[in-house]
């Protein structure tokens, strides 16, 4: 069961908001949740990351230093956090922007071309939610429905019109590995 995930990318990709989506979904499911951003100098224009904990028990330390699942949207984030993932953990890699392979052999690695899929949907900015959809499908940390519902809480009032495309992005991501598996089987 997954409880602690780390989302990482560069500033502007929507990493912190994606983490909040997970956290809100956790609230909707009646869980304890915490969300901790990287803050300070490194955040401005550089890498952005946030750790989200979703648990049935009250959360002692909110710091996600050894994530069970890592979602990386750019290469510096993969290089920074690859070694921190627990053994048998999961790494979801945005293969649109990360042109190398994960070196570790003791974790499950799933590659998804999030930006390419986002462009196919007509909006490059929803790439983060494509990766998030995949992360949710692979970890079942929260339900996709709860995340869909959370969009209304996390998107600011002037972005509420983007709920629909973000929901499509989440679905696209969630179905990606499902489809791949079926294609292989078929």
């Amino acid at each position, binding site marked *: 069961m997954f409880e602690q995930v780390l989302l990482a990318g560069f500033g502007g990709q929507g990493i912190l908001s994606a983490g909040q989506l997970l956290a809100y979904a956790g609230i909707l499911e009646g869980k304890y949740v*915490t*969300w*901790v951003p990287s*803050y300070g100098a490194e955040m401005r224009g550089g890498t952005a990351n946030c750790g989200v904990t979703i648990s049935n*028990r009250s959360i*002692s330390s*909110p*710091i996600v230093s050894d994530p069970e699942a890592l979602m990386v949207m750019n290469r510096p984030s993969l290089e920074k956090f690859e070694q921190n993932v627990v053994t048998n953990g999961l790494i979801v890699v945005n293969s649109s922007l990360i042109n190398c392979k994960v070196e570790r052999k003791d974790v499950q690695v799933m590659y998804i071309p999030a930006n390419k899929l986002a462009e196919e949907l007509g909006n490059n900015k929803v790439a983060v939610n494509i990766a998030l959809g995949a992360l949710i499908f692979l970890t079942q940390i929260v339900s996709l429905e709860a995340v869909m519902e959370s969009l209304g*809480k996390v998107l600011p009032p002037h972005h509420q019109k983007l709920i629909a495309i973000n929901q499509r992005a989440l679905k696209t991501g969630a179905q990606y590995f499902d489809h791949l598996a079926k294609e292989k089987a078929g």
Partner: protein
Amino acid sequence: MAKVLMKGNEAFGEGAIRAGCRFYFGYPITPQSELAHFLAKRMPEVGGTFLQAESELASINMVFGAAGAGARVMTSSSGPGISLMQEGISFIACAELPCVIVNIMRGGPGLGNIAPVQSDYFQATRGGGHGDYRLIVLAPSSVQEIIDLVWEAFVLAEKYLNPILMLGDGLLGQMMEPVELDEEKEFFIPLRPWAASGRMGGPKRIINTLYIVPEEAEKHNFKLNQKYKEIEVKEQRWENYQTKDAQLVLVAFGTAARVCKGVVDYCREQGLPVGLIRPITLWPFPDKAFDYILSLGTVRYFLSVEMSTGQMIEDIRLAVDGRRPVHFYGRFGGMLPVLTDVVKEVKKLLLKEEP
């Protein structure tokens, strides 16, 4: 009411608005800046005043002025900024005016870093500035508790006419947690016969911080001291967690207390009788919690877990007064205590195991 996700820093702001605070003066410093960001937007919505001053010195003296005029007022900063405010805080304490000051600590000494630490404990609990005075110090350990304690802070400030310091760290300020926001409670502003807001035909109202005649200064110090003694008796707050049959009692506040709760749960699953005292008021320090636990007779050791090189441990030793050994485990400079490391310390004491 539905739960909303809120940052600790924002919760200080929202809690203050709900408690009827209508004046905020401050100067930005990480890791508390979101508090000011939040109030810059929120204060005007309720007809309040948000002002970014030119420095921390100006901020605290604006707080002094507003409090003297009878306003419900707050400021916030982080370590170095709080140090700059100490002169003003001493004056406010001397003048016996109510206000709330938030310190989201940063790693020091010096300019330090913005990672979570608890190294301003001494400064907070010993007054902080010059002169013989105390602040009531509140230490929340979750975002929900921030909201609840800010209300409490303004009540205490006006009950005792004393500045209140709320102590948090960067992690508490930056993290988001769900909070339950009740319907806004009606807040009550007591009469302020002491406020320099016009004599209205009555006697002169004077706010004084200068007692040049020693006899008068001693009388004023005596009066302040009576107040502090009353606070020590009436306002100790703490949380006991699994202390009833505990042989080892951890003592921790704020973020360190969160980690320690995890330690207690982990140890209990392994059958180790471990508990936690979490001081909520750091001053007055909850001596009573220790008297109570010692009266149960099961406790063999206390272990202070702090994000400093050991500051609260002095108050624990004063409270325990030699009745049991008090040990220490700390991480500092912005490093957090890790659950497994604290468990190792616990086992070292309880099982005499060397790691």
